[in-house]
């Protein structure tokens, strides 16, 4: 194993996902052929995307709905099978795994948090959190002990015996996060986890996630449509539009130097805030742009405005 694959935990190379009725046989790099595919009703959801994520890094993929960001994140554990491209995780080639290896990968290497929680309505909080361990065949006693710990980590102690329908949205997503944490995977995949929550709760959950990240140093791929969320959470981020990365960099780079007019439109509000901050020279009231390297800090995002 070379040093390169040690620093990068996840490497995605030239990933394509084309939804089409028939099997795709054309060369995806032939623009005319792809155009033909699209004309025939095919949809290119992910278009030749490559990125690398370091261990302990939070990588945010931001884009509007329909930009392909949810498809992209689902391609990593192959909930959606990519049409072409390579996914390397810790030196293992995910894209070439057979069904058995893939199941093992999903059980031990990557855990996912969903926008719509995806909790089992007929199971209690405790059973939901220990669900992944049950699938792995962990003994009931052991898995419940681990689940208890994860439930405590996300601040739901005392709710173990409740059912998801008895919980508020924010609490349900805490269960979703606990269910992912209990897997003790290196990689966490979060698909718009806080988009369904109201703004105050969303803010609270973001801070919760930063707090957890400070303890756990997970590697995260975080999908969102909310720029302020991306800025608050991301070490690095990419802006996605119709299946492509328009720009990739640190949140600061993207806000200060938007690559094109599309990104510019996204970030103009954030720029205004930054400008106001300079004029007023009152950084305590206004959110500062977090400049984080390595470990993240709550203080960088402790502004009151969202």
């Amino acid at each position, binding site marked *: 194993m070379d040093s390169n694959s040690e620093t990068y935990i996840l490497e995605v190379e030239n990933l394509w996902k084309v939804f089409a009725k028939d099997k795709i046989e054309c060369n995806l790099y032939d623009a005319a052929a792809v155009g033909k595919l699209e004309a025939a009703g095919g949809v290119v959801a992910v278009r030749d995307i490559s990125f690398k994520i370091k261990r302990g890094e939070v990588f945010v993929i931001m884009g509007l709905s329909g930009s392909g960001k949810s498809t992209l994140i689902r391609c990593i554990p192959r909930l959606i099978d990519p049409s072409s491209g390579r996914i390397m995780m810790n030196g293992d080639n995910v894209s070439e795994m057979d069904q058995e290896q893939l*199941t093992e990968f999903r059980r031990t290497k990557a855990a996912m948090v969903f926008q719509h929680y995806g909790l089992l*309505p007929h199971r209690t909080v405790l059973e939901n959190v220990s669900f992944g361990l049950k699938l792995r065949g962990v003994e009931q006693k052991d898995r419940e002990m681990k689940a208890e710990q994860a439930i405590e980590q996300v601040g739901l102690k005392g709710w173990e015996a409740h059912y998801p329908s*008895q919980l508020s949205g924010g609490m349900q997503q805490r269960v979703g996060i606990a269910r992912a944490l209990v897997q003790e995977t290196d990689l966490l995949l979060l698909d718009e986890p806080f988009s369904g929550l109201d703004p105050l709760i969303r803010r609270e959950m973001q801070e919760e996630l930063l707090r957890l990240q400070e303890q756990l140093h997970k590697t995260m791929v975080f999908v969102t449509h909310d720029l302020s969320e991306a800025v608050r959470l991301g070490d690095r981020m990419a802006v996605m539009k119709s299946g492509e990365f328009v720009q990739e960099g640190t949140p600061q780079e993207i806000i200060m130097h938007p690559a094109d007019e599309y990104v510019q439109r996204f970030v103009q509000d954030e720029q205004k805030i930054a400008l106001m901050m300079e004029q007023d020279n009152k950084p305590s009231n206004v959110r500062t742009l977090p400049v984080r390297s390595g470990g993240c800090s709550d203080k960088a995002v402790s502004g009151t405005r969202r």
Partner: protein
Amino acid sequence: MFPEALEYHVAPYISNFVKWLLHTCGPAFDAFSNSLITIMVQIEHGLLFIPWWLWAIGIMFLSWRITRHIGKTILPAVLLMTIGMLGLWDVAMETLSIIIVSVVLALIIGIPSGIAMAVSNRVNTVFTPILDAMQTMPSFVYLIPALMLFHLGKVPAVVATVIYAVPPVQRLTNLGIRQVSESVQEAALAFGATPWQLMKEVRLPLAMPSILAGINQTTMMALAMVVIASMIGAGGLGEKVLVATNRIDVGGGFEAGWAIVVLAIIIDRLSQGAAGKFDNTNIQR
């Protein structure tokens, strides 16, 4: 008038086919017939062995577990008593034993095939028109092949009843599994569920309310068919109705009809209540 030259009958072919079937597979049918009748006699003995007061207590106990309501607990037991008071106790137990055997067989066939329909679209496309046909066909039609293959008596009655009662549970099993939320299934897959684990841990438990509704429907269909099957010698309450109809004995017909209604009410309430208890997907605060 339709031209006579265009007349064409399939009846002889079908009759010949059934004759051929009987000729070649006769022993198999007999063996099936004998084992089924043995089971049924055993069950009937078992049902009659339980004294009437134990029946009443048992039904009150179950109703109480389900409803927690005094009136709804006592009423089914009182209704059951009226069957005995009309002198139809033994006959009702005979009917009940046919229903039990038919429903068990219908579930053994219906639930797995419903699961197969949910898992495979191809199986679904094959079964859907068959089920449609089975449900639109008048129930009397099922009596004919059953009668031909198994002669008169309880066995053809059970066969006809099973055919008639399978569709609801099969359809509702299929529907229930297909209706399980995609996002829950996706989450289970993301955590490494195998297809079997997905079925066992997620799809079947979440389809349970629908499956139980199917079981309830199947049971009610079986009861209806058992009455009709008295025409081919099923015995039981249906026979009483049949005899009363033939003799224009309005009173006798009413008594037997009443007993059937009572059975229907009790079975329906109990199975629906049990389904409600199982319905763990809508737990409210």
